[in-house]
């Protein structure tokens, strides 16, 4: 009976016991080995980190209302953007989709009881919150002012802030990424249900697999780099500071060797989510399944050889610049392929516009802009002018916020009924998606213009001619902030009072929709047997039979 069909009536009715009510009490959550509960623990943690990072962003945008700085001292401003970057990158975006939706969905989607190593999974969360504790300590103790990039010799020999605590926090949280990635790789290889071949996997799983590869291969490099930075700062071992025999560019090479692939850690899972949403809400197979699947792997692999495009103006040789420029154009192609395939999937579909779909369409638009503006920066000559300006800030926010955060929110809205067993008010959700789209564009589009005009990033004080655009951007940020608060409110409401969702409120395919909402602790009553390709929605041919 448990096959990968979408017949609503085949799914079991809401079971009386599920993973949420099987056991009660703080201890049952803190010692849980259930991947679904661990996913929830991560969701709570990263939401908290997002709020702290978001408050820092709001204070920055307030300060930038006036050229002389409307709110804070320069040192405080420097700490605000550093904390915003560190929290958002390492403690929100990197774990966002993998640790929450990935944890929750991978076993459900492949028809498994749990991940391969449930204890390791729980340990990853404890490792992660230990990292969070170090970083939050650094914030409380007085902050860190190096930017999220920690460039030495400033970070190692000159900064008077809590660099070591923050770096240690990232170092520790990195192990959580490595362990999670390892867990996912083994789970996807070994735990698939009978009949779940590689080409029957939902594209979200392909994306998580590619992400996990980067977790495992890339994260150790940033760990070692931060360790070396700590050694130089505490023990004065000359590694990066030329005054004691080091090489500052070495740090940049090592840092970006991880941090560029990390960009794809943040966006690949989002791409996986979008593939699920587009198919579910147009009731169609994905257009070009294998191209979308392999483009994820191509991105993961090529992402390891493009780090030098962060260093076109930092003193890297011209020839290295040429090589990294070519490779950066190459990595853009698989992303373009995905965008075209998603668009083509809509063709002749049966498209509906619930909130998750609005986020998905928003993602495609904003990611397209984020990706295309990346060409300005892969292109050497324009990068000379735009590097280190607000153009960069706008570009990566289009990819990271317009892309990754939109996908995260779309995914949360899509699987919320599965996670909680309850619906949320769709009208409010659509409204919030709309507010976020408007607020986002008003915040970040003016920053492209500021960058081209030459306003450098990390400036809390700026020449007067940039004020109009900065005020527009700050106004947009206030709208964006409202847009992020609305979902928090109705999700809290839904958790307590939302109407029951039923096993498959969207009429979607996929094993996760064939079990109850919320799923029972053991996920499936019987091990499912898969006999079909993914996204096998009823087609015209079937109907005519």
């Amino acid at each position: 009976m448990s096959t990968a069909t979408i017949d609503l009536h085949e799914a079991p009715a809401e079971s009386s016991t599920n993973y949420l009510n099987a056991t009660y009490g703080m201890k049952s959550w803190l010692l849980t080995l259930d991947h679904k509960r661990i996913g929830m623990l991560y969701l709570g943690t990263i939401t908290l980190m997002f709020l702290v990072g978001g408050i820092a962003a709001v204070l920055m945008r307030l300060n930038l209302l006036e050229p002389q700085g409307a709110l804070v001292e320069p040192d405080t401003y420097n700490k605000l953007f550093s904390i915003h970057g560190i929290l958002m990158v390492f403690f929100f975006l990197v774990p966002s989709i993998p640790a929450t939706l990935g944890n929750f969905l991978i076993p459900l989607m492949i028809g498994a009881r749990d991940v391969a190593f449930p204890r390791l999974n729980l340990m990853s969360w404890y490792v992660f919150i230990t990292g969070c504790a170090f970083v939050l300590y650094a914030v409380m103790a007085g902050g860190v002012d190096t930017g999220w990039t920690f460039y030495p010799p400033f970070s190692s020999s000159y900064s008077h802030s809590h660099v070591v605590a923050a770096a240690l926090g990232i170092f520790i949280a990195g192990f959580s990424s490595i362990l999670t990635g390892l867990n996912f790789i083994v789970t996807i290889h070994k735990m698939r249900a009978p009949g779940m071949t590689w080409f029957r996997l939902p594209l979200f799983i392909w994306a998580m697999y590619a992400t996990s590869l980067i977790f495992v291969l890339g994260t150790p490099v940033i760990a070692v780099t931060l360790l070396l930075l700590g050694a130089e700062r505490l023990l004065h071992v000359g590694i990066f500071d030329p005054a004691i025999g080091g090489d500052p560019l070495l740090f940049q090479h090592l840092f970006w060797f991880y941090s560029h692939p990390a960009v794809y850690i943040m966006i690949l899972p989002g791409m996986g989510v979008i593939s699920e949403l587009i198919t579910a809400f147009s009731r169609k197979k994905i257009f070009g399944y294998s191209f979308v699947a392999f483009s994820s792997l191509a991105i993961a692999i090529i992402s390891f050889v493009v780090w030098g495009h962060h260093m076109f103006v930092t003193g890297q040789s011209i020839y290295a610049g040429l090589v990294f420029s070519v490779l950066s154009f190459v990595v853009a192609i698989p992303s373009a392929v995905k965008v075209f395939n998603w668009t083509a999937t809509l063709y002749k579909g049966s498209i509906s516009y619930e909130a998750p779909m609005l986020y998905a369409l928003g993602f495609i638009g904003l990611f397209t802009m984020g990706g295309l503006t990346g060409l300005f920066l892969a292109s050497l000559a324009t990068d000379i002018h735009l590097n280190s300006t607000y153009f960069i800030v706008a570009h990566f926010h289009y990819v990271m916020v317009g892309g990754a955060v939109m996908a995260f929110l779309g995914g949360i809205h899509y699987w919320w009924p599965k996670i909680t067993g309850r619906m949320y008010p769709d009208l409010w959700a659509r409204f919030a998606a709309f507010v976020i789209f408007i607020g986002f564009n008003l915040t970040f589009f003016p920053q492209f213009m500021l960058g081209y005009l030459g306003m450098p990033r990390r400036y809390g004080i700026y020449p007067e001619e940039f004020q109009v655009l900065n005020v527009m951007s700050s106004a947009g940020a206030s709208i964006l902030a409202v847009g992020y608060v609305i979902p928090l409110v109705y999700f809290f409401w839904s958790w307590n009072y939302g109407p029951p969702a039923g096993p498959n409120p969207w009429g979607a395919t996929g094993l996760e929709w064939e079990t109850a909402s919320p799923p029972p602790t053991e996920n499936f009553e019987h091990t499912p047997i898969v006999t079909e390709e993914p996204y096998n929605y009823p087609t015209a041919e079937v109907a005519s039979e």
Partner: protein
Amino acid sequence: MIFDVSIDATINAAVNGTMTTNLAQHGWAGLQTLAAMFPLQPPVASSIAGDIDRLYYLLTVITLFFTALIFSIIFYFMVKYRRRSNDDRPPDIHGSLVLELAWTIIPSLICVVIFVWSSSLYIRAYHPPANAAEVFVIGKQWMWHLQHTEGPREINALHVPVGVPVKLTMTSQDVIHGFYVPAFRVKKDVLPGRYTSFWFEATEAGTYHLFCTEFCGTSHTEMIGWVYAMPPREYAEWLANNENDEPMAQQGERIFNHYTCNYCHVPDGSGRGPSLVGIFGKPEKLSNGQSPVVDEDLIRRALMEPNSVPVEGFAPIMPTFKGQFTEEQILQLIAYVKSLGSQERANAK
């Protein structure tokens, strides 16, 4: 404000019956106010700025085209294929190899064109012409120190002549800084312990922003200044009015003699160290088999870690001068060694 102007214009025009002329005048004034409040382009003031802008505009057109393409296709599909009934049965479409190839190959070709164009500009931006005037830059928390080869020093300001290529050779005394002149579309990071350089040729006289673009601590935002591009005659006057500093090469020679470098580095090569006459810009044979070209970084290395640059035919007896010179003095010594080369060339002629 702007709206007030145009409303007034409309009312006046209606009253006076000279609508077209008045509107044109006030409209133009309004546009100018708008342009001042809301600039869309930084000044175009160097020989490469226009070329970089043209590439920028091409990329903007490509971005707008593909964004519009994707948006309009999505909107069209959203409307045309909206769900009309829960029993909709879409056709069974798996994909299309032709389309996949098309949307892989066409973007790739566009990328090739951009790459070739932008790389040629990049190479140009970082290859100074041989006749470029030289200015030396030292970045430190939180100010810019500059010295012209002719001698004048400046802080947070750079005077340059229009129409003359100027090469900046830069280093930092502490952390990494970035030297950025948006009006010239040029930027390069300034690193401690080594030299980076770039060049530009100002084409429009004017005063332009100079920004530090690599975060360098508390007053990073105040590490800014102005670049004054002047017509050559005014620039010559400015130089003449600032001649209390002697040329850098002379200052370097004084240091050279004061530290008794001239005891060993005798011009005819008979000393205990190699002659420095005419070595700049040419390969120097080392006893480890390498023949690196003598540039600013090599001279710096020879001063700081002499044993890492053992010149063939000489005993490695030079002591290190690490910690004994300021960054400015090192630059002056380099200027002196450079001048020895050009003296020799001048004598040969």
